């Protein structure tokens, strides 16, 4: 009895540590107060304020657009790259894999600084523009597409590609109708991972973005640093909504995976 109890107690305590701040925030998103801890009766006032704040809604929209566009580019570039690397000579492949790992293991501030220096010095025409921001996000996400697609390429049966060619398919046709369907799960998880990383990013964004452009991360960072900021209560509502969306996505994915396993 005790043997089972202690591990469960431990898991519960760690989960409490992880979720208490989030639940407190969600709880106080349902009351109209500036200071957390003060309950002024149940209301959706903060949500109403959030949705009527065109500035924040614009930032949310821009953040999502940036994440999706950067991830699409990363997925296309990374998938082509992974296929190319897979069929390259060993030496080329190993060089590319190593360079691909640099942004993955590098401290984000180092990646950010190196990009900022280059845009400020060499590519001045796109310094602190949407282009430099987009490139920054592709730099931090595309390597993960490679890392997601590569294992699928290794697992794949390469005879079917040869078979498609023997049966008269052009290389392009064989690539799209044979190779891509085999590696699509890797492409999908690479894409999802890219979206997550892009939505989450602060440091590279701060170093490459235009002055007037904000993502959720940079906006919240600037708001949180000021002791009293008018946007803070609204951020509670925003956090609660994002949390709810994530919980729904996680539950749906869980169902989907269970179905897959049953099949």
């Amino acid at each position, binding site marked *: 009895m005790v043997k089972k109890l202690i591990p469960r107690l431990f898991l519960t305590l760690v989960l409490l540590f992880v979720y208490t701040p989030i639940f407190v925030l969600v709880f106080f998103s349902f009351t109209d107060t500036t200071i957390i801890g003060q309950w002024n009766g149940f209301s959706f006032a903060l949500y109403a304020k959030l949705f009527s704040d065109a500035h924040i809604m614009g930032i949310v929209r821009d953040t999502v657009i940036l994440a999706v566009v950067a991830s699409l580019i990363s997925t296309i570039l990374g998938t082509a790259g992974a296929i190319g690397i897979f069929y390259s000579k060993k030496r080329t492949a190993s060089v590319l894999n190593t360079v691909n790992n640099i942004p993955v*293991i590098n401290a984000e*501030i180092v990646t950010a*600084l190196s990009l900022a220096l280059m845009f400020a010095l060499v590519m001045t025409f796109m310094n602190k523009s949407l282009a430099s921001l987009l490139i920054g996000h*592709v730099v931090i996400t595309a390597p993960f597409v490679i890392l997601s697609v590569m294992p699928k390429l290794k697992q794949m049966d390469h005879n079917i590609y040869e078979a498609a060619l023997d049966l008269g398919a052009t290389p392009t046709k064989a690539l799209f109708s044979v190779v891509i369907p085999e590696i699509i799960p890797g492409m999908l998880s690479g894409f999802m991972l890219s979206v997550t990383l892009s939505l989450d990013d602060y440091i590279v964004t701060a170093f490459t973005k235009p002055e007037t452009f904000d993502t959720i991360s940079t906006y919240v960072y600037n708001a949180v640093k000021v002791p009293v900021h008018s946007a803070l209560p609204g951020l509670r509502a925003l956090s609660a909504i994002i949390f709810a969306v994530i919980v729904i996505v996680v539950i749906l994915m869980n169902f989907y995976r269970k179905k897959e396993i049953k099949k």
Partner: protein
Amino acid sequence: MKLRFSRKHLCIPYAAFLALFVIAPIIIMLYYAFTDRNGAFTVMNFGRIFSDVSTISAILTSVSVAIITTVICLLLGYPVAYILARSGLKRAPTLLILFITPMWINFVLRLNALKEFFSLINLLDKSPYLNTVIGMVYDFLPFMILPLYTTLIKMDNSLVEASQDLGANKVTTFINVILPLSMPGIISGITMVFMPTMTNYVISDILGRSQITILGKLIENHFMQNNWNMGAAISMFLLSAMFVFTWLTGGFKSDSEGVARGSGLW
């Protein structure tokens, strides 16, 4: 032969991208690290890393925060991963998802939640250092749990059983069999926690109320004050440290799965 030729060349756009936006920026940074404000060659920037008081203090702060955070993450994360992977809980996979779910919430919003919670329980102004460490643990714990769980769940159980059949008790089995076998997970967990804690200044800014200066913050300060040379030198120092560490732990092998931050997240 011509067919394979075309597939191989699919990597050209990405290779060009890497050359332009990963390699070239590092070369430019290297140039700045080895020149002074007037563009003359110097190694003084590196000399100053180890002589300038504010830099040394930032290094000491970063290293101490990183060590404490990594140890706490390991002490919390290992038992969590172990219980989930090896104690035969029915709902272990679902529980694992519960531990990872916070990773999907925007991390600045998550830090804001922690900050608001700290101010609720009157902890915010007590110790910026302690707040920073708690914030780091809060943020990086899932990155420790994931690789440990992956390693523990894949572990060959027959080795554990053999050890027990040969008369070893549970503690001996754990120390001599399970712990050595979980080393790859421990190493990639440490990699994913240690480096970010030395440099992620967002956490120390928000929870340490900008009173804790870690290396990442120092680089940002130098950049903002247009002292690019010093910022570049500290960055090169970090980059070299990262290379040495990764090389020592064999992380550059393309098939090492732990190396990917967030691998297993999707």
